[in-house]
């Protein structure tokens, strides 16, 4: 399936860190929306957007969760922007082994932004009172590939952690119980 070019709507959230005032409403509504049933619980640690926030250094970086990566990257560089020093990781959207961001707090499974599925715009954007988050759509020609679903990403993590055999055995045992 790969290799073919296809037009695709790319959904993005433009982030203006100068406008963010650090209230974390985006984390609140994201975690509530993704609760099951919807809005039945709230826990910013489950949010797929995080504000990396350090008020005394005037650092406010909202970042929404991107792809899961098995291996951590080599990047540990520092960037100085407008006189403020940022870790390279601060801007990274990946759920990776080297940090806690974008993982379920209890299971450690990765979290990924889904742009709030069928909502008109992502709810973090809707709830951002400062307009620091702006939803954008654009058409791009991309190589078509099968997108991994949440379940698949989760399974992949479990395979990485326990090995395929153990996981298959466990699923087998669980199936047997029914």
């Amino acid at each position, binding site marked *: 399936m790969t290799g073919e070019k296809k037009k695709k709507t790319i959904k993005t959230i433009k982030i203006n860190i100068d406008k963010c*005032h*650090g*209230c*974390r*409403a985006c984390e*609140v*509504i994201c975690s*509530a929306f993704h*609760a099951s*049933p*919807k*809005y*039945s*619980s*709230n*826990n*910013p*640690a*489950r949010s797929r957007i995080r504000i990396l926030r*350090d*008020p*005394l*250094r*005037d650092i*406010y970086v909202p970042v929404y969760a991107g792809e899961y990566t098995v291996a951590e990257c080599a990047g540990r560089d520092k960037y100085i922007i407008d006189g403020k020093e940022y870790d390279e990781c601060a801007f990274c959207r990946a759920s990776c082994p080297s940090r806690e961001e974008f993982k379920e*707090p*209890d299971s450690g499974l990765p979290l990924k932004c889904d742009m709030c599925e069928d909502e008109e715009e992502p709810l973090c954007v809707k*709830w951002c*009172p*400062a307009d620091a988050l702006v939803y954008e759509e654009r058409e791009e020609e991309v190589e078509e590939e099968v997108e991994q679903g949440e379940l698949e990403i989760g399974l992949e993590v479990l395979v990485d952690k326990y090995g395929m055999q153990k996981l298959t055995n466990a699923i087998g045992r669980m199936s047997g119980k029914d």
Partner: protein
Amino acid sequence: MRYAETGFNLEVDLTRGNIERVATDPRDTELYLGGLGTNAKILWDRVPPEVDAFSPENLLIFGAGLLCGTPATGCNRTIVSTISPLTRLMAFSMMGGFWAPELKYAGYDKVILRGKSPDLVYLWINNDKVEIRDASHLQGKGAIETAELIKHELEEPRAQVAAIGLAGENRVYFASIEQGRSSASRGGIGAVMGDKGVKAIVVRGTTDINIAQPLEYIELCNEVMEYIKFRNENPIKWVEPVLSVLGSPQEMAIHDEKWHTTNFVWGNARTRRKDFWTEDVATKWMETLDSMRTRLISCYNCPMQCGATISVPGLPTYMMKCFSKLTYTMAAFSDLEFGLRIAQRATEYGLDGFSTPQVMAFALELLENGILTDKDFPEMPEDNEGRFYYLLDKIVNREGVGDILANGTYWAAKEIGKSAEAYAHNNIKKQEQLPLKLSMMNPIYFLMYCTGEKISITQIEGQFPQGPFPKREQREEFVKDWFQVPDEKFKQYFLDWELRGENSIPYYPTVEMCCDIVDWQERMHYIDDALGMCAGLSSFPMKPPYHIHNFPKFISSGAGIEMDEEKLTKAAKRYRTLVRAINIRRGMRKKDEKPPEDHWKHRFPDLEKDLLDTYYKYKGWNDEGIPTKESLNELGLDYVYEDFVKRGISMDSEDASSNDASAEKEKE
């Protein structure tokens, strides 16, 4: 399953180093809600009046409001309750910031500290792992500095820290607890924290808070967000800019300080400077604010930006909120740059921005009038600003005269003697108030000043305009969309309120109307303080997004407690009465319910007596301000009645003050 609240408190015995997670009774939540309500119940049950502020038996309770941690916009307040060293009564100071929601996510509604730690410690609450840790290396550190050091040491930048500075460690009676961009400042609760040997409480939580009826609840939250947008685009007309919008007064955003600087008084609450605000001053102050204010910032889950990070050249960055912008400036007759500069040091020390400048101005007034002498201030600089820095350091370190001043103007004046008490003229119930000196007595404010048990006027007012609008057409337009009123009669009260003539202050609003208005305003504040709602989106501004008509729905769908306006009103009255009962048991009586002596030029003794007597009756209190047997029974506070009887406190009208178990008396 418990909704909105976790159903668990954290009980910490500092003497024994014991920590317990204790399940709470959901019936208490139904009767007293959360936050202030259940804090008051715990204080009533466990801290008898014989216990003073610095006794190991005194509790220091950090209560998250009932709806904190849910998506309710602006609901983030921590209510800290204890016995105040300053007033010797119940203190219930509140702070915004990020601490209360984090505590909920860690799995607790309250942290209850008892006993005293022999060494300085901090408490580290990381979900179900809770430990008391050594804080000897943090001794003497600033409150903000402490928070940064602890987060670094724990490698947990997301932890929320409530910390005291040196003032709390040295038991300064007006020491605060600082948290993020907020602080719990009133009543000297930081001194109690210091007395217990606790430098900080650090929280990190990653568990869920559940909602009873999710779709209904989020719909209410969305409505509030929409309304906030509407109000931001439609400020209230015909009032001062500071009163026209939502949030706490937008001191960090506004440049025009004509209203405060020309109406509030300077120095030791004495001098009005009607001509102060000139074009030159306006330009200079604008330049100062613009050059030092890095960013306007918010509390947790709130669209308002009531605070700011302030970077004064040569000093560490700090966060400022609200009126402390002007308190130091005005006490010292100085300028904004001085105010922002000295507030940095005062914030690190952890001090109440209302009381501290007043105490310093009081000391200098005593010096100017020969009650204190140069010998009391060895090596004090001669320049005005230098003297304030000198006094600040002396007070916080309790050195020399600073040791006396650290107890606040009321207690300091008593100790100094030589008629110093005449200079401690801006107190209510021993706590410094907003420095005002106005011409005509205002009956609504008279009642709030006298009877408010927050003992801080800024945390009692709101909802009803502070004065009449000049034209009837303006008033008619104002009441058109005033749906927040609990009853239509309030609209008529306002429509008929004139600047001059028969329907003007002080005889209009009438005594009965004043009772209605003050009771409404107070009710909303008490509801906020139980739910953890910021007053800036509810009880403080006019026409707020949260009000008596939607709060019951928030409680029903959020906490799963069946609620309507009547039941909520009764619950608020119940714990408001309980707060009063705690203070009555500690000896508070009508004699204590007086506005600051020098506050109004024209007073009306007969009207004031009528106001107080009528309001007492309206609230179900006797002539001495003690809740009557009937009102206690009606609220289900029979246990209060029984305790009063046991202690010989009369709930009948006569001789009510005959048998006071007054902590103040014992102290004196």
